[in-house]
């Protein structure tokens, strides 16, 4: 089988436009707290979620909006939840990090690594009650050092549970570069636990779809878990208003509040020798410099742009699809924003 690229592109574009609308509402102050968008992950999410069926479960991290949308949860309900309205998906009680849809067996958590055990439990219920159905765990590479995730991979392996562990690797655990805090190789870790592991380009939806297809078939037929490692970029960084990106995008506004206390502290008597201090300063500067060189600044790494370039062969079809999706998201927005609760 091969992926149906037009429908995958439609899912990805829909998700992108939806999340861009969320970003605007957040910037306007209509959505509170943190906001972790899935922009940049769309190929991974679409490649996996498009193959789920009734009875399959998904465990989502703090960045689960795109997956819920693609799974078929009503975007109006999602948006009204993010706006904190009483008729939102979770009655305004959950917010974007804690979105739950019982009908879709989809549960989000803001606790890093918690999707591992959650998916294993969903998979146990699947194996016992609904053979042929599966569970998916989405998490970032920052979560692979969380004990509960490693423990749940072991459990899935020894119980041969129908789980797809999907590691969305953007290389950053909030402001920490993951390779500086992660020993060895995450793919080898999974293999060390007896789980087949596949490495794919998470910016290429066809590659993700094909890898996920084999893994899901394997899980459905009772042959146990698979670990899917997919590299991606987070276009907005860890969350909206992400400090490192703000520094790079608007240095004149952001740098003075950082540089002056940093310099004062660097020069204060009492503390480490100069060599140590400079090593400390270098660490801070390195984080900013890596952001400057960050692949997320290059549209060549944008999964939506990448799949679109492969579809230019049929411009009328492409135009029709994009107009339809834009119209659909426009309608979602106007419906979701139409009635402000008293």
């Amino acid at each position: 089988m091969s992926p149906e690229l037009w429908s995958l592109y439609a899912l990805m574009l829909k998700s992108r436009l939806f999340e861009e609308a969320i970003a605007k509402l957040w910037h306007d102050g209509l959505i509170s707290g943190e906001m972790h968008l899935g922009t940049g992950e769309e190929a991974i999410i679409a490649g996996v979620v498009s193959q789920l069926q009734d009875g399959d479960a998904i465990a989502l991290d703090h960045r689960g909006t795109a997956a819920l949308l693609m799974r078929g949860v009503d975007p109006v309900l999602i948006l009204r939840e993010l706006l904190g309205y009483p008729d939102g998906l979770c009655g305004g009680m959950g917010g974007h990090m804690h979105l739950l849809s019982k009908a879709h067996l989809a549960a989000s958590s803001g606790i890093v690594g918690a999707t591992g055990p959650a998916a294993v439990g969903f998979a146990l219920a699947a194996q016992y009650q609904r053979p042929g159905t599966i569970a998916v765990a989405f998490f970032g590479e920052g979560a692979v050092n969380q004990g509960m995730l490693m423990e749940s991979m072991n459990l899935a392996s020894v119980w041969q549970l129908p789980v797809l562990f999907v590691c969305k690797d953007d290389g950053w655990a909030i402001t920490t570069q993951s390779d500086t805090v992660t020993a060895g190789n995450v793919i080898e870790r999974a293999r060390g636990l007896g789980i087949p592991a596949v490495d794919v380009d998470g910016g290429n939806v066809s590659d993700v779809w094909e890898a996920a297809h084999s893994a899901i078939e394997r899980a459905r037929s009772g042959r146990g878990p698979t670990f899917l490692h997919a590299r991606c970029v987070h276009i907005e960084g860890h969350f909206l208003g992400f400090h490192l990106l703000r520094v790079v995008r608007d240095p004149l506004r952001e740098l003075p509040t950082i540089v002056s206390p940093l310099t004062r502290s660097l020069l204060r008597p009492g503390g480490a020798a100069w060599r140590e201090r400079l090593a400390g300063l270098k660490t801070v500067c390195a984080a900013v410099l890596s952001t400057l060189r960050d692949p997320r600044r290059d549209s060549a790494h944008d999964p939506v742009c990448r799949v679109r370039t492969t579809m230019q062969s049929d411009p009328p079809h492409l135009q029709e699809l994009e107009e339809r999706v834009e119209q659909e998201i426009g309608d979602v927005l106007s419906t979701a924003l139409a009635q402000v609760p008293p």
Partner: protein
Amino acid sequence: MRTICFTQAIDDALAQAMADDPRILVFGEDTPLLRRDLLARFGPARVRGTPISEGAFLGAAVSAAMAGLRPVVEVYMVDFLGVCMDAVLNHAAKIKTFSGGTWTAPVVVRAPCGGGYGDGGQHEQSLWGWLAHIPGLTVLVPSTPADAGGLMLAALQHDGPVIFLEHKLLSETWLEFLGSGGRRTVQYDVPVEGAKGAVPQRWEPLPIGKAVLRRTGSDIAIVSVGVGVHRATEAARALESEGISAAVLDLRTVSPLDKTAVRDMVAQTGRLLVVDEDYEGFGLSGELSAVVLEAGLTCTYARVCTQTTIPYARRLEDQVLPNSSRICAAARQLVSS
């Protein structure tokens, strides 16, 4: 004296202690950037970033403390202690007793806590009652910059495990990092006296387990901690115009609890109103009623606490977290009953 912000005060006191005591190390998730000023002064050997592995780095902090270091270990939010509670509950808190009093674990666990910025019920809890429930832990909840710095210094000199909770609504940096994200389109009900204030040039440790009277009053004693102190003070001002004189006692330390101060206040007023942002059941508010009952004092009692999981929606959250109108209503009822 100088005037500085809440988190700035904590970091300033921490820096002073680090300059004096080379055994102090600071580590946690994203610490190199979050505590970049300390990193630039004390270097990467003493200010370290960790993987997202709370069980490992908090557990390691406990035994590093047992082996002679004075680690300050930082978790992103107190809610996430759920991930590594074993190190706190079964190890840090127990070492002194298990060793017959011969060995201690002087670790400081620093964690942002509290709500009021719409981040949802998994990221806005207080949990000091849950932690103070465990014998062997010291739990500090400062409400002003001066107390925050002074108590951090006290924590660093204390000979056992300390949980140091930093309310996000008082912390300019956490509120910016997790709440506004640089937006100017959102507002928060930040208590001004708690977010910024006068602090000494050189920090001195504050006594652990010593409450402070924020406001005198003769009709009713309001006892609180953290942001609740400021909500209570706001309510006390409003009650004054209605002819109700309310004292406000800031516990500053949840464990050990300043029972004497509580008993004195209740003996003077005959009415106890507890304002607690932590959960109502089985926590600080109930503990305070026990303190009064055990002392044989007679008083009327009410509490304004968080009763449910904190809702994400700002409007609902404002109703669930203690606010001055709920405090005023409870006070009026106590006085009229």
